[in-house]
């Protein structure tokens, strides 16, 4: 029985903008799956990377760390990173870590793609 990934990450493309849609909980055990997906997305040199967190019911600091790493790559390769779909509870964790003002966060995927 092969180990299933503890988090699933759907990848979409909208004319050069990559959208990652993780579904599940993002703690210490699951964050590496998101990390791999983010790195793989940047490797393909998109115009922009959007991460839609609507399917993330739980986010702990390993998830935040992975997103901050994504932001660092974003700056290095000069490719915007935009977050969207944060539930209130996920936003709360960003707020405590004072990361809500560090990331570009939009209220809809469309806004994230077009802005």
């Amino acid at each position: 029985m092969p180990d299933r990934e503890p988090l699933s990450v759907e990848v979409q493309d909208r004319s050069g903008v990559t959208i990652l849609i993780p579904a599940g909980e993002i703690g210490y055990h699951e964050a590496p799956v998101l990390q791999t997906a983010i790195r793989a997305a940047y490797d393909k040199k998109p115009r922009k990377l959007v991460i839609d967190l609507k399917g993330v019911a739980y986010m702990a600091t390993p998830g935040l760390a992975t997103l901050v790493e994504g932001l660092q790559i974003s700056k290095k390769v000069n490719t915007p990173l935009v977050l969207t779909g944060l539930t209130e509870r996920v936003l709360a964790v960003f707020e405590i870590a004072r990361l809500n003002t560090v990331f570009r966060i939009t209220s809809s995927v469309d806004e994230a793609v077009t802005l």
Partner: protein
Amino acid sequence: MSTPADAPAQPATPDLQLELVSNPIYLCAVREMMNLSARRLGFTDAHASQIALAVDEALVNVMKHGYERRLDGRIWLRMTPHHALGALADIEIVIDDRARQVDPGDIKGRDLEDIRPGGLGVHIIREVMDEVRYEKRDGGGMRLTMVKRPNSTAGANSNITPTNTNCSLCRDDHARP
């Protein structure tokens, strides 16, 4: 089961005592156990999520820093609800390990202004719980004691954005889809 009012305070027996191996595959099971236990004890869904988050962050730290990612360490978690006048007064959670001892003063997160991955778990724990105390255990290893009260406002006011006086972790939505 009732104690005379003048009897010396006895430490209550924990309702749940869990010994787990330091393997991250069990983190989601333990945080969900804490979440559901806290709800059934009478915490709001928002507070129960905070308790689960704090326990998760604390266990991750024991696995990462205490046992340095070894998968065969042991961790003990005890959960004791206290009641007063028939109502829930608080929940006390104690996490023990037999790992590396560090000075409690060295357990602190990074400067929040210094944006980089990591260094956030201890901030979260201190923010969402009402009491947080690290100490060295006599026989070796560390102990973390955390307390949360049902009327807690910990984590409720984020001083981050001036317009946002209520941290959303404290609003009572249902996070699970």
